[in-house]
């Protein structure tokens, strides 16, 4: 019994020793450092070296002349939210059936975080399944992680044809997919018509293609154009899974001529000089008042210096 209690005490002591050694080792190896607190300089350095996570979205637009515009949006996660990232190099690649990459070109993201790259599809061969396959890649740098996004497009085009009546205008569209078996109509697709305005594009009409992939849409009268009534018209079948965006553009004198010549306003707040009459009135009024103040102040001095008779 005595021996038992002795051995128990010994076990307890050795247990305490083990814990003490463990803590000491941990202290020396620095494993306990995060619990005890960090050096503030180290924290700052770590923050400066922080790698911002980036995210990329790749979209494509196809035009009737066979050109394809690839558009990569690069965003980086800053303080919990993704923000547009400008001035970063993006590389665009085409993939073949063996998933081998061939470089199409590089562009740099603008202030809106977008990098655009345009090329002609006739110079490129479609893959065996009749599609184009692309990858946009951002390699990253010391501060930002790399990211990439891929896109598969079926070749297609939207053809826009203007129709002019006596006093009415309309637009005829044909949406066609370019398959290995030849052109095939794109049915039930929504075609949106936009007109370019100062800050963004204004949607002015909409239509849906029939079984032949065709639709005719009336164009509104009376829109403000340039001095020669020209309007930049855009038609889009937007964000389809198979074709991406199908776009067509043209300029037609279907608007109302508006002159945007800047004429100097006679009394603008920002004009270089106020009108002469205003300067004259101001100085006459203020001068009259302040001269009287001056006369009164001189009078006050005379009151002070006047000696009693």
């Amino acid at each position: 019994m005595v021996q038992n209690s002795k051995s128990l005490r010994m076990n307890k002591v050795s247990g305490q020793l083990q814990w003490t050694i463990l803590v000491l080792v941990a202290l020396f190896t620095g494993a306990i450092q995060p619990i005890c607190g960090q050096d503030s300089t180290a924290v700052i350095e770590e923050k400066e070296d922080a790698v911002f996570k980036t995210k990329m979205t790749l979209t494509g637009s196809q035009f009737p002349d066979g050109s394809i515009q690839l558009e990569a949006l690069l965003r980086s996660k800053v303080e919990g939210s993704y923000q547009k990232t400008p001035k970063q190099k993006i590389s665009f690649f085409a993939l073949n059936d063996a998933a081998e990459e061939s470089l199409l070109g590089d562009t740099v993201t603008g202030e809106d975080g977008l990098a655009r790259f345009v090329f002609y599809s006739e110079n490129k061969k479609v893959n065996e399944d009749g599609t184009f396959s692309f990858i946009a890649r951002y390699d990253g740098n010391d501060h930002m992680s790399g990211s990439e996004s891929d896109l598969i497009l079926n070749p297609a085009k939207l053809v826009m044809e203007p129709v002019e009546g006596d006093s009415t205008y309309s637009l005829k569209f044909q949406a066609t997919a370019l398959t290995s078996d030849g052109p095939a109509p794109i049915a039930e697709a929504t075609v949106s018509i936009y007109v370019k305005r100062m800050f963004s594009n204004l949607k002015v009409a909409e239509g849906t293609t029939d079984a032949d992939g065709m639709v005719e849409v009336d164009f509104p009268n009376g829109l403000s154009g340039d001095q020669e009534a020209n309007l930049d018209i855009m038609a889009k079948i937007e964000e389809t899974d198979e074709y991406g965006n199908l776009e067509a553009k043209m300029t037609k004198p279907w608007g109302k001529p508006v002159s945007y010549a800047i004429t100097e306003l006679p009394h603008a707040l920002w004009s270089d000089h106020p009108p002469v009459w205003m300067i004259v009135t101001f100085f006459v009024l203020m001068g009259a008042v302040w001269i009287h103040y001056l006369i009164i102040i001189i009078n006050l001095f005379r009151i002070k210096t006047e000696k009693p008779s």
Partner: protein
Amino acid sequence: MLKISHAGHEVLKTFAPLLERTRTREWIWIFFLLGVIAWGLYALYLQITVGHTVTGMRDNVVWGIYIANFIFFIGISYAGAVISGFLHLLKVEWRKPIIRIAELITVIATFIGPLFILLCVGRLDRLHHLVLYARLQSPITWDVLAISTYLVGGLIFLYLATIKDFAIYRDSTLLKLSKWKRKLFAILALNYRDTPGQNRRIEVSANLMAIIIIPLAIIVHSVLSWIFGMTLRPGWHSTIFGPYFVLAAIYSGTGVLLICMWIFRKMYKLEAFILDKHFSYLGYIMLVLAAGYGYFTFSEYLTDWYGSEKWISQLIRKFFDWDQYGALFLFTNVGGILLPIIVVAVPKLRKPGYIAIASGIMVLAMWVKRYLIVVPTLETPLLPIEDIRPEYLKYSITWVEWALTFSGIALFLLLFTIAAKFMTLIPVSEVTDEEDEKINQSQHGTEFKVPAHE
């Protein structure tokens, strides 16, 4: 030693305790006002450190209660310009006991009003740009120059009317003044010894100031109205805004003067000097102004309503909508126009107490009116705003704005309290002159009566 009449002696005796020392009751009052101001300063600290987001002002409603307060304070400053200037030029005798109060209201209100502009300005660190990069074609520049000129004018006018009193305080054996105060009065009295030359100079200067201060006051409030009137916005772009603002300012200034007269009469037992007739006469002025102001109001809204212009109609609908500004609009017209007319027009109601209460309600209504000029228009933008949070479109006053508003009122009262420690609220010299003139009249066959209640 300057000559003082019996009435002058009485005034000096009444105000002697105020000039000589500060009693515990006054200290409590001063500390209370300082407490309110400190509350406002804390609110200001928050506004500067956190930003204007602590106020109700947002992208659309960029002006709020601060601008309403600014117009209100500049408006009440008209009390001095009208009572002192206009009545001085007309040589109206009964003005004399009340001019000091009127002039103090002018100077203090003109000093406090622009402070609210500073509260409204987001970047106080760029305040000097107003002077450095002033553009003469901007109504804001006109305002800065007009108000600073008006403040200087008000100060000169007050000083001119107080020189004789400072000389009386300096020479008085009745007053037990501290050394520094007597020395201060000696400096401020400018060696005035009641010589004919000195009197002539003061009279000429006071006449000049009386002539200048009236057009100046009109210009100041017209310019203030043009900040709104020059803007192409519903409810603001109006040709009658200049005279409308001027009339409203004189009206509210008269109201504040009546309230001050009533309070000081009660507080310092001034019934022998501020008579019932002063309330009646000022009441008549208030009645005429109320009628004129009512006419302008009716004319303004009638033409707007009849024109049925889209945005103006939208604004007017808000004034007649009980869920929006209907109640406030009704209050501004009933409390601000009808009530003062009724109280003064009905002989039984024409009593100092009733007139003071009606003035109080009218002044409050006039403050609300300024709010209705500023806020609903900004809540009715010409371009429709979509996808915006309701609090960005609708203005509501925050506690920070209330705190700064009340501290502005507290500062007004504090400056009045401090001014009363350095000058009698009824001018001793004017009361003396008035009595002398009455004696002269009695010697020339006109009956002389000791001032008493009517």
